[in-house]
């Protein structure tokens, strides 16, 4: 370094930009330092700032001046104080200022602001922005919109929570069964998807009850009236088909979607008409009219994995949905669907019934044919205005199911035939009206159902019981069940400080009738068995209830307490047998939930509840009913009463910085029953019921833990889950009482990694270990294992290739302990013609059977299910 040059440079610069430093202190009033005042240096009477400083906490400032001028102006200003200016000489100096308060106002300004694109709680997604060449239907496009997710069963989530309503042009045509539209409406017909955040579907509640749920609205292109989608697929072997034709019509005041679908490739098309919104799903539970099968053929337990691998079907679905807007805010809806399916089940089952004294083994070779036929229709009138909410739904469900089964039981062939029809009518009314400042809600549900069912078995069974031990040709079990149910309630909402109260009163009435008889056929002579083989039962249940729901929210605490009180009356009568029982009681079923956020990382929850349950008609008939060819039951027992108490404790830890999430739940439940039910197993494998009228106790401990960690560098998520349960109860088997303990441990792991943008890998496993113990005796531990590996490749933007490998293993069965599956999927999209070609090659290794093992407290069952063969399917998808 040349020092002399450096020195010259220093000298030169000090001449040219004679740099001066000015420092000092700014104060106000009684010498209080003033922080944040600006000190600027300008030319005399100039505007341009040459140098500046901002005074610090102590009011001190310091600034350098790069200027050749001899004299300059220093200005000190602070908002609310009079500006001070001073002419100074351009040299190092110390200058202090004392500012005086001023009443002069700041120069205010308002400029007309530019419009904001997004208004209110509606978010508009323009479909064309998201849709690319290969997207066909709404579901494809929706899944791409930020914040929206589509689950494997078609359920749509927005910000992780299920959507509340699925509207088309503001109208709720499908009542939660939106898969039909989502999988078939061509994306090219849609202009916009709107997400209505904080959407309250009931207009009357809009300004009163805050909703944090979102709904979705589909806006169609202006000229769209008729649209739709179709898919044609064929393959082998045997000949396979998969057809879907779905035309749709939309106009201002009317909407209609019709669909015909058929396949024999194992696609469960009943999914298309499955209810997906939570609100509509809850509605279904309230009806209390589930189809009940009193008799069945001996079915095979189905494997616990994708139906596409084993469902041997031949299904046809026809559904039509129509909506008409009668007046503004008054809608009429009609949904009708007809499903016809023919399914085959083949396989065999080995069952060992374990009694404390003996082991009874039976072996069955099953060949079943199931015929499913159902017609469901729904008529809905909705009035939704700012002053009233009224909704009336009338529903009819009809099933004409029948089954045929042939079983080779220890070398003897047994044929079974059932007819299990069911029909029901329901009406539900909901009315919300304002009453002063409160809103009152009136709800009424009415249902009636009827099912005349019968089971035919050849040759004879239960000879000892039915025919003094003599064999006969055939038997026929007839069951006729009817059910009337109504539930009516009245409630309102009241808030006070941090409390919200919802008082509710109501009543329910249920009336059930059960008639049954058994006929045996011997040398073409029918013999209707009497007395203990005939039921003529009436079961009435009525209750009057009141409930107060109290919610308390304060800071990090949230408490909810329910205090339902019910007066119940049960009346059970069989006039033919002259038997009856009455039961009246008052039950109190409180429930308490407490949640607390300890801090940003830890949260805790606690809940406790007590509830009662009482035996239903299927456990109350006095005479025998044959449920299937090896099960005959009668319940000459008092009404089962059980009282259950449970507590749950949960701790959640989440550290987003470390990407670590752990949660753990412990729950304990204890229940007391007045009866002990059990099975008597006969040597031919048939069973009947036994009971002890004795108070008994069962309890369960469960622990669930889940941990998940994301590794940034490896782009990998590791998730581990453990479920441990310990179950203890008394069990009655062949008239002796035993203490049974069941322990089970489930371990699940999942590894998910994105190797590159065009390749990803996923590995999952599931290990279940179960062990059952009688008092002194322990049984073999069952270990079931599942491993799953997925490889996905995206070689170009219009191609997709996926490999999927599965491995299943159990330690119990003597043969066929292991199963391997390999599947391949390839899709090619023709960008111009918008046609998708897809090739599915399933079960490449051609695994023939799958064996499942499971145990109950008194039996081990090993069941082998015949799977779908290796198959190749080619399909084509296009829009109308």
């Amino acid at each position: 370094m040349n020092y002399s040059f450096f020195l010259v440079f220093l000298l030169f610069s000090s001449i040219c930009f004679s740099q001066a430093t000015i420092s000092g202190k700014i104060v106000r009033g009684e010498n209080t330092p003033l922080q944040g005042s600006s000190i600027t240096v300008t030319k005399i009477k100039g505007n341009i700032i040459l140098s500046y400083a901002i005074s610090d906490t102590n009011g001190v400032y310091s600034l350098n001046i790069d200027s050749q001028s001899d004299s300059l102006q220093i200005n000190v200003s602070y908002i609310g104080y009079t500006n001070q200016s001073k002419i100074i000489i351009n040299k190092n100096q110390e200058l202090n200022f004392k500012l005086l308060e001023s009443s002069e106002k700041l120069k205010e300004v308002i400029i007309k602001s530019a419009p904001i694109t997004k208004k209110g709680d509606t978010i508009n997604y323009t479909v064309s922005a998201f849709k690319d060449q290969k997207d066909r239907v709404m579901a494809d496009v929706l899944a791409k919109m930020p914040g929206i997710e589509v689950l494997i069963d078609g359920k749509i989530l927005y910000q992780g929570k299920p959507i509340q309503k699925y509207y088309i042009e503001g109208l709720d045509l499908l009542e939660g069964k939106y898969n039909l539209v989502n999988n078939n409406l061509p994306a090219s017909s849609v202009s916009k998807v709107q997400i209505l955040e904080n959407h309250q579907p009931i207009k009357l509640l809009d300004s009163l009850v805050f909703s944090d749920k979102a709904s979705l609205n589909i806006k169609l292109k202006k000229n769209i009236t008729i649209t739709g989608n179709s898919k044609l697929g064929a393959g082998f072997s045997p000949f396979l088909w998969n057809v879907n034709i779905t035309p749709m019509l939309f106009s201002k005041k009317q909407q209609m979607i019709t669909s015909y679908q058929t396949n024999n490739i194992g696609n469960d098309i009943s999914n298309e008409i499955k209810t997906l919104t939570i609100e509509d799903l809850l509605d279904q539970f309230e009806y209390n009219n589930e189809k009940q099968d009193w008799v069945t053929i001996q079915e095979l337990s189905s494997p616990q994995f994708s139906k596409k691998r084993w469902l041997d079907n031949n299904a046809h679905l026809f559904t039509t949905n129509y909506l008409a807007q009668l007046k503004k805010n008054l809608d009429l809806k009609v949904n009708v669907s007809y499903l016809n399916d023919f399914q085959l089940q083949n396989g065999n089952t080995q069952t060992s019934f374990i009694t404390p004294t003996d082991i009874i083994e039976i072996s069955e070779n099953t060949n079943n044919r199931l015929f499913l036929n159902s017609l469901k229709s729904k008529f809905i009138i909705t009035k939704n205005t700012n002053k009233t909410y009224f909704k009336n739904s009338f529903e009819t469900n009809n099933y004409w199911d029948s089954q045929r089964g042939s079983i080779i039981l220890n070398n003897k062939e047994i044929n079974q035939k059932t007819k299990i029809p069911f029909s029901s009518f329901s009406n539900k009314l909901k009315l919300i009206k304002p009453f002063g400042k409160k809103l009152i809600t009136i709800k009424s549900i009415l249902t009636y159902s009827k099912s005349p069912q019968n089971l035919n078995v050849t040759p004879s069974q239960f000879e000892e019981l039915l025919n003094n031990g003599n064999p006969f040709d055939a038997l026929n079990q007839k069951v006729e069940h009817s059910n009337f149910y109504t539930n009516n309630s009245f409630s309102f909402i009241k808030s006070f400080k941090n409390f919200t109260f919802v008082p509710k009163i109501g009543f329910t009435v249920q009336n059930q009738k059960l008639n049954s008889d058994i006929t045996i056929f011997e040398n073409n002579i029918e013999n209707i068995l009497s007395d203990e083989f005939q039921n003529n039962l009436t079961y009435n249940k009525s209750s009057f209830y009141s409930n107060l729901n109290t919610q308390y929210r304060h800071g990090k605490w949230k408490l909810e307490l329910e205090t339902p009180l019910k007066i119940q009356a049960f009346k059970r009568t069989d006039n033919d047998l002259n038997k009856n029982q009455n039961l009246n009681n008052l039950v109190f079923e409180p429930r308490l939930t407490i949640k607390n956020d300890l801090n940003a990382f830890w949260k805790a929850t606690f809940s406790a509840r007590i509830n009662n349950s009482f035996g239903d008609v299927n456990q109350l008939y006095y005479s025998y009913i044959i449920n299937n060819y090896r099960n005959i039951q009668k319940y000459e027992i008092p009404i089962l009463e059980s009282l259950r108490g449970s507590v749950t404790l949960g701790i959640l830890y989440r550290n987003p910085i470390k990407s670590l999430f752990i949660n753990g739940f412990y729950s304990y439940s204890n229940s007391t029953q007045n009866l002990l039910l059990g099975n008597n197993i006969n040597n031919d494998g048939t069973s009947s019921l036994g009971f002890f009228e004795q108070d008994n106790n069962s309890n369960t401990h469960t622990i669930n833990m889940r941990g998940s960690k994301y590794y940034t560098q490896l782009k990998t998520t590791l998730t581990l889950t453990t479920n441990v349960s310990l179950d203890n109860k008394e069990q009655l088997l062949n008239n002796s009482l035993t203490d049974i303990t069941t322990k089970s441990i489930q371990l699940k792991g999942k590894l998910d990694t994105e190797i590159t943008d065009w390749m990803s890998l996923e590995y999952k496993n599931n290990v279940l270990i179960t062990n059952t113990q009688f008092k002194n005796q322990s049984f073999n531990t069952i270990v079931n294992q599942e491993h799953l590996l997925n490889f996905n490749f995206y070689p170009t933007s219009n191609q997709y290739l996926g490999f999927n490998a599965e491995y299943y293993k159990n330690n119990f069965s003597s043969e066929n302990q292991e199963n391997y599956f390999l599947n391949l999927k390839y899709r090619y999209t023709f960008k111009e013609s918008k046609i998708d070609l897809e090739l599915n090659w399933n079960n490449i290794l051609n695994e023939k059977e799958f064996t499942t093992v499971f145990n109950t407290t008194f039996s081990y069952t090993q069941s082998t299910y015949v799977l779908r063969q290796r198959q190749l399917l080619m399909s084509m998808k296009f829009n109308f």
Partner: protein
Amino acid sequence: MKKIIYTLIFLISILKVYSQNTTDIDNLKYKCKYIITYQADSTNINSIESEEMLLLIGERSSKFLSLSSFLRDSISNNIDRENTNSINLMTLFQSVPKTKFKDKIFKNYPKDKITITEQVLKDYFIYEEPLNLFKWNIKNDSKIISGYNCQKATINYAGRDYIAWFTNEIPLSDGPYKFNGLPGLIIKINDTNNHYEYKLVSLKEQKTNNKIAINKKDYIKTTKKEFYILKKEFYKNIFKKLEQSGISINFENSSQKNDVLNKYRKRNNPIELENK
């Protein structure tokens, strides 16, 4: 397993706005409104969006946040639970648009520091930076913007070159975002690529006794560097993050998943490109 998911979803849903409390940190003196115009995707010139932002200036400190955040905060902090007639507040709440800017910037709080709080999904993060971040270069250019005599200043900050126009007529050493340290309020500031621009649209003195407040939350204390890594990872791998917190998302085919991810990855143009 399902129970856990539902419990989690339930927990998220009850953690919403209702129970908010605040700590007052200063008396509100001036309210400035800025319009931010920004390009969300640096590769797509059509991804330009805009939003209204507020700079609340107090006696000692200031707070910068989006207008939507401000409205949401003030509504939820003012709900009168005793009075069931809070209908108007509720309707108002529902009419507030969502914001893309969830960060709140507190200058000179605590003294000589900038405090930044930001919500990601359901977590609230907090970190500090020094107040004197900016070493401005004052230029001789001047022009009148929004009726104020403004002078030009330039700076390179966090990977972008900025041009700021400030006025000595408003002797407040403050501005939008974290920008401060000039001898007057910043009226307009933009980066040289025009990816981010803030422009003052109104300034009003506050005569009522309003406060500048910070929400009381369970803040997770972090550093700026850590926070930016976390946020970047979050958008890059949103599904893994959601899945970890117990929200499971299954896709019929994983090409759909890839498309969603790409959509999120297009949010690729944060205001701060480099972080120390």
